[in-house]
């Protein structure tokens, strides 16, 4: 087992990784930017090294500084978390050549799945259904029009290096295809340094259902069921649940097997997620594979009774897949709400700043993964997620009631958060009926009954 691990990330996931390390008796080294000097994970780590100025490009993305810190900290392994360098195959290669274990898949698997386009071809080869689309990168608008005509509108133009909902445009006709093609390329160039795009059929208001994969270095790969991440705003997930209200045992078996088959075909190791789009007709199409631990790994943990981050560390240290993970079965329902420092009344505009008062909900079946605390200043340089609120229950209905209750006791003052937004969703008929798809948030927010009414107590004064 490792003696010391460097956490190449920040915020709640850095805290998550430190907690797993501490439970495994592993010493922790946190690297941080100047904006994160007061961050909780830096304070809880055994050691910490400042690696740069606030902007991510000056700190969390600086491979050379992270490796220097790893060297002087004399670490055995690096956990990249999610985002930042987590899916950077070059970073994994640098770790490999420095003989520091990268807690994640082999770099060659990251290369295979990292390019959305080559991932599709691996899926095709593995017999996993994919959405009809271009055979590869679409070079120019003439080709784009030809392909769109062939597969039929509406189509989605997607960046091959994309992620986080960026570098994507939907086109319903030729004129919007032309503008969408160029603006997607432009956005992709700016966000990922690679303007290449491909085109696929746009499944209207699909369900976004993903499967958790866990593979050890001894050839064993299992899936730990699905998560429904259809509740999205601007292509970013806001609420996730496990299991999916749309799932049947038969469909789970089919999709789970497809996910495992794909992972096997690229020699996958460690944690990963295979994402699918599912139409109302329950036909599923491979979308992409994320070669990292995900934000919503938490709900799988609650439902399947396992610690996925600890398992990542064990696998990276060479151990075989734990029996309780290999034979895990779903035994409850779980929902996660991503709490962001954003103002839902002002179009979710970011709301960084000092948290004057912070009280997180508790009680039976409530889990909070957060690095926030009273007096903590949310910096403006990074993503706005400050907490993950997870509730677990025996049934979907009781899990929703519990989430509603927990949100009502979540007090964060000094900044605006999306807590009232989540409360309104938990109260919506459509969500409670389990009848939602990726168009849900827009519809529900436009409806008259949508009321962002924060709870008021004396604690606010």
């Amino acid at each position, binding site marked *: 087992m490792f003696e010391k691990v460097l956490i190449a990330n920040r915020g709640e996931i850095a805290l998550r990784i430190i907690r797993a390390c501490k439970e495994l008796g592993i010493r922790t080294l946190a690297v941080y930017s100047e904006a994160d000097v007061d961050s909780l994970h830096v304070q809880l780590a055994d050691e910490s090294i*400042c690696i740069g100025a606030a902007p991510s490009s000056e700190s969390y993305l600086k491979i050379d*500084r992270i490796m220097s810190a790893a060297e002087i900290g004399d670490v055995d392994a690096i956990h990249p978390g999610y985002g930042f360098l987590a899916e950077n195959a070059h970073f994994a290669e640098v770790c490999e050549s420095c003989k520091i274990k990268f807690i994640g898949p082999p770099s060659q698997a990251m290369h295979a799945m990292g390019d959305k386009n080559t991932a599709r071809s691996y899926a095709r080869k593995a017999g996993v259904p994919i959405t009809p689309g271009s055979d590869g990168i679409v070079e120019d608008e003439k080709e784009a029009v030809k392909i769109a005509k062939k597969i039929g509108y509406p189509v989605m133009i997607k960046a091959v290096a994309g992620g986080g909902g960026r570098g994507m445009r939907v086109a319903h006709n030729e004129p919007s295809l032309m503008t969408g093609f160029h603006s997607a390329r432009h956005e992709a160039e700016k966000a990922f340094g690679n303007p290449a795009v491909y085109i696929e059929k746009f499944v209207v208001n699909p369900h976004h259902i993903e499967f958790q994969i866990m593979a050890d270095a001894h050839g064993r790969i299992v899936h730990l069921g699905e998560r429904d991440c259809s509740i999205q705003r601007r292509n970013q997930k806001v609420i996730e649940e496990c299991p999916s209200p749309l799932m049947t045992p038969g469909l789970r078996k089919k999709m789970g097997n497809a996910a495992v088959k794909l992972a096997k075909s690229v020699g996958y190791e460690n944690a990963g997620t295979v994402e699918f789009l599912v139409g109302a007709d329950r036909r599923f199409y491979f979308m992409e594979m994320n070669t990292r631990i995900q934000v919503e790994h938490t709900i799988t943990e609650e439902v399947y009774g396992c610690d996925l981050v600890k398992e990542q560390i064990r696998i990276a240290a060479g151990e075989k897949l734990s029996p309780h993970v290999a034979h895990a079965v779903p035994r409850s329902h779980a929902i996660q709400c991503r709490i962001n420092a954003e103002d839902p009344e002002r179009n979710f505009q970011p709301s960084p700043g000092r948290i004057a008062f912070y009280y997180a909900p508790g009680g039976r079946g409530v889990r909070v993964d957060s690095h926030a605390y009273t007096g903590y200043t949310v910096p403006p340089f990074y993503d706005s997620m400050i907490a993950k609120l997870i509730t677990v229950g025996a049934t979907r209905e009781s899990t929703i009631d519990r989430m509603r209750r927990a949100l009502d006791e979540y007090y964060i003052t000094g900044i605006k958060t999306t807590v009232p937004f989540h409360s309104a969703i938990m109260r919506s008929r459509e969500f409670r009926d389990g009848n939602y798809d990726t168009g849900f948030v827009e519809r529900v927010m436009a409806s008259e009954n949508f009321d962002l009414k924060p709870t008021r107590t004396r604690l606010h004064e």
Partner: protein
Amino acid sequence: MELKDIKAIIDLMSKNDLSVFEMEKDGFRLKLQKGVGDQPAMAAPIVVSATPALAGPGAAAEAAAGDATGLRDIVAPMVGTFYRGGSPDAPPFVDVGKTVTEESVVCIIEAMKVMNEIKAETSGVIAEVVAESGKPVQFGQVLFRVR
């Protein structure tokens, strides 16, 4: 930042009834907080904190307010091991009292077996050698103070 600048800020704070002022620039952080009501009384109202030094549990280096007149910090622009000379037996590049210009090499920071020459990027006279030769330094850590 000089003492007269800090006095001017305190003045402005009083005039405008502000209780907290915080600023950060180039590894230098300044926080001024007026003692209010049930806030714990502070021995010194001025807290000047340098970016925390490399680790032990709970370690957060805070330089005493002391004399903030005219001393500028040369800070580490990278992460690595600090050496005062070009090699273990070589004499140090600079000592207290040495005059430096912006282009003067003041030390080496070694990272991943690469020796990086660090320039002063300021001119003046070395007043203090803060970092210890052979020890690791982090980004923003104070290496020297220059008058």
